[in-house]
Structures are given as structure tokens and as C-alpha cells.
């Protein structure tokens, strides 16, 4: 892949000379590249935060002995086991301003008239973030739940005897013991968000304009609309570097936590 990034792969050319860092230089001169960096940064920050928060709330709730936990768990993880491209289309349909349950029915009856959701830059970004969180929070929920179940109940009993309330035992028992699991969840979600592609592709294809053009979509468009595999690979190398830097940092945090 690094080889691809420094050679010239354009459509219909038979030989592929090595061109050094030209692909990178060209990439850095594109305004669109900085746009997709910014969009990806926003996307990663928002999806990681909200999917973990939502996953944490769900797992704390379902970790009690409530009735029907299994059924609820099945309903919640179902979307995660369906192809992202199908769930992407599902939400594109739901958001549709003429025929969708949310876009044409629920929002207008709540008195919110924002027209086409995916046609407006800001709303489209919020929508793709929402759908990503909706799809991936169940996975975060499963990981965090597994972590919660590893915490011995006797700790909570001891805390209760010492007079600790629900909130303080969450702060002093649950959070510290959950830290490792939470960091793993963050690592997995960061990798997933940096590489986001499927759902955004089917929902907006990076649009409107380039409002939801994350790095993956940008690279895809360079590779197959502008037919410049070399430059797209340069972008791929940059995505790898971003992931590696982020993961190395998080692993360092993880090692400190243990």
C-alpha cells in the first residue's frame, strides 16, 4: 500500500512510474482534504463520546436483575448484527421527508419542520453521527456489560454497609474497575470511526456538497471517481498513521491504568 501511495496509478495507464511524494503533495494542496480531516475529526469525537455514554447507560441499566433482560438485549443488539449498509438505508428511509416515519411523520407532528434532513449540511452530519451511534452503541454496551459482570457484587455490599449511596459506589467502585474496559471500548470505537464508510456512503455519499465527507468517503471518491489510486493510497497511509498515533496514545493510557 505504501508502494501504491508513491506511484502513479491513474486509470487506463499501463505503466505506473514511481513519483515519490507527489501524491502526498497533491493531496495536501486539496482544500477538500482539510475538509475531510475536519469532518472526520468531528465524526470521531462525537460518535466515540456518545456511543460510549449510551452504551454505559444501557449496560448499567441492564446489569440489574430486571425482568425480560434477555429479550431487551436481543432487541438492542439486533441492529448491530445487520449489515451497516442495510441499517444505513433503513435510516435514509426513516429520515425521508415525504415517506419516512421520522422525517415525514414524527418530526412534523412534533412541530419541527426542517425539510429534507439529509439535504442540509448540518442536519446531515448530525444524522450520520446519530445513525453511527445507534448502530455501534450496542457493541459498546456488550463490552461494558461484560466488564460490569466481572465486578464482584461483594464490593457493592461492603460499600453499602459502609454507608455509600448508589452514586458514590458508582464513582468509587464501578468507574475505577471499569476503566480498563472503557479504554478498550474507546480504542475499538476510534478505529471504527476513523474508518467509517458504509453507512455514510449509503445515506449521503459524503454530501450534501462535502458536509459528511469523512476520510474514507473522500478516499473512495479520489480512487474511483477521479480514478487516482495512487493519491487515494496516500490518503490511506495518512488514515493508518492517524489510527496508529491514536491507538498508541490510548494503549499508553491503558498501561498507566493497570
Amino acid at each position, binding site marked *: *500500500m505504501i508502494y*501504491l501511495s508513491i506511484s502513479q496509478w491513474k486509470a487506463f495507464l499501463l505503466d505506473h512510474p514511481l513519483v515519490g511524494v507527489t501524491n502526498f503533495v497533491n493531496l495536501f494542496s486539496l482544500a477538500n482534504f482539510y475538509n475531510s480531516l475536519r469532518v472526520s475529526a468531528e465524526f470521531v469525537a462525537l460518535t466515540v463520546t456518545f456511543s460510549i455514554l449510551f452504551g454505559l*447507560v*444501557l449496560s448499567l*441499566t*441492564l446489569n*440489574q436483575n*430486571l425482568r425480560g433482560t*434477555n429479550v*431487551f438485549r*436481543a*432487541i*438492542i*443488539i*439486533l*441492529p*448491530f*448484527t*445487520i*449489515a451497516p*449498509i*442495510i441499517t444505513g*438505508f*433503513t435510516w435514509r*428511509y*426513516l429520515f*425521508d421527508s*415525504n*415517506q*419516512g*416515519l421520522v422525517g*415525514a*411523520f414524527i418530526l*412534523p407532528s412534533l412541530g419541527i419542520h426542517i425539510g429534507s434532513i439529509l439535504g442540509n449540511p448540518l442536519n446531515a452530519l448530525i444524522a450520520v453521527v446519530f445513525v453511527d451511534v*445507534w448502530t455501534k452503541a450496542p*457493541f459498546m454496551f*456488550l*463490552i461494558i456489560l*461484560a*466488564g460490569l459482570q466481572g465486578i464482584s457484587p461483594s464490593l457493592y455490599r461492603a460499600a453499602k454497609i459502609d454507608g455509600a449511596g*448508589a452514586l458514590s459506589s458508582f464513582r468509587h467502585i464501578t468507574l475505577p474497575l471499569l476503566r480498563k474496559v472503557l479504554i*478498550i471500548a474507546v480504542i*475499538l470505537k476510534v478505529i471504527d470511526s*476513523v*474508518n467509517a*464508510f*458504509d453507512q455514510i*456512503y*449509503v445515506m449521503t*455519499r459524503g454530501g450534501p456538497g462535502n458536509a459528511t465527507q469523512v476520510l*474514507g468517503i473522500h478516499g*473512495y471518491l479520489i*480512487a*474511483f471517481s477521479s480514478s487516482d*489510486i495512487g493519491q*487515494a*493510497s496516500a490518503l*490511506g497511509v495518512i*488514515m*493508518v498513521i492517524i489510527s496508529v498515533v491514536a491507538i498508541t496514545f490510548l494503549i499508553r493510557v491503558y498501561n498507566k491504568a493497570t
Partner: protein
Amino acid sequence: MKLNIMRILSYLVITGAAVLYGVPIIWIIVSSFKPVSEALTGYSLGQVLFYFTPTLNAYNRILAGPFTADLINSIIVATSTVLICLALGVPAAYRLARTKNAFTRNLAAWMISTRMAPVFALSLSFFILMTRIIPLYDTVFALITVYLTFNLSLSIWILMGYFEGVPIELERAAMIDGASRLQTLTKIILPISKPAIITVSIIVFLFSWNEFLFAFLLTSTAARTVPAFVADFVGIVVIDWPAMTAISTLFMLPALILLTFAQKYIVKGLTMGALK
């Protein structure tokens, strides 16, 4: 009293989540039985959900089209990936589980790294590889190869963890009774490892069944799987939603069935890949 408030709050959260996750899926299934797509503005909820004559039109339409061939491709790709993963993974995992050295201890890091590989960057390399160097483009073998690289290491890892827990005395006893290594594996280890094998099969199946990017880039028509077929709808402005939702309904059936009957294996497989 305080406990009760917590309980009520918990049930509220769960119910909210169930609505948030259940309704879209129900909406898709209901819509696939609608005769034509229709505008919803100005209707009441009851009308939106129930006021139409259910019909199988959408299903007849899509099954008459190229969807059927793509569905067959999806089935071939997913089942072959599972079978090859098990055929290669079981012996490999067994050998590794019974060998203790620095290599097997560091294996975990390598195994995880293949699952975390940046897919977009790899997809371009695979695209060039399959179109220019090895002529596998638009064949099911291309997809099976790619899916194996993503899944084999994870399968070996899950199986290895399980095999390590099988007491070695069981094997010794079998061998004293005259069983060969292979017989020990097939007659003793495999039957008690059924949970691990089911877990691996389901996780690998769902991955291969749902995978989109590689299916989209590495196939055109002959080996196209359903996710790649669905992507053809992306550029269309006015989508035939009954057809689209019928495709979605058929395509999510395996996940629905597996979640109903084998939920604990899915949960185990998903979390095992991440924690340990």
C-alpha cells in the same frame, strides 16, 4: 421507596431503548408489504402503520430480478468462509493450544491487529492485487480470500482459548486406550468444544454476510453479493422503498434467526474478540 424510583427509571430507559431499536426494524418489515411507496404527510399514526392492503408484490418483483443470484452468491461466500475457517482454524488452534512458547504467547497481539486493520487502506491494495496481479476480480474466491484474512486469526484465537481449557488428562486417557492424535481431536476435543465452534461459525458468518466495502470493490456482476447489490440504489433519487425494504427484510433474516436461537453465542463471540 428510593429503590422503586430506580426501578421505574431503569424500565423507562430500557423501554425507550427498545423503541429506539425495535421500531426501525418493524418499520422496515411492515413497509415491505406495502403496495407502493406513499407520502406520509397528513396521516395519523394508525393510518401510517396499518391502512394498507398487505401484498407480496415487492417480494415477487425483487425475486424476479438479479437479487436472487446475488443472494446465492452471499450464501456461497458466507458458508464457504465459515467452513474453511473451521477446517483450517480447528487444527491450528489445537496445535497452538498444546504448545507453550514465546510465539504462542505473543500471538494474541497479532491476532487482534488483523481485526483492527484499517479497511479502507487495505481495500485499495486488495483491489489492485485482484485486478492486476491475481485475476480473481469478480469471483467468489476473491471475497472468500479476503474474508479469511480478516477472520481466520480471530477464529483460531477463540478456539485456542477454549481448547486450552480442555483438561489434558482427557486426551491422555484416550491415547492410552489406543486413539491416535487425530482421533483424539475428532472424538474427544471436538464434541466438547461445540460451544466454541458454534460461536466461531456465527461470528464469521455474520461478518462475511454483512461485509460491504470489499464486496463492493472486488465484484461487479458475476460474484456480486447482496450488500454490493444494495449499493446500486445509492445514486437513485426516488427509491422504490417497498422493494428496498423487502430486500432488507430477507437479508436480515439470518441475523434475526440467530439472535432468537443463539443469542448467547453471539454475545460471547462479540465480546470475546474484544476482551481477554
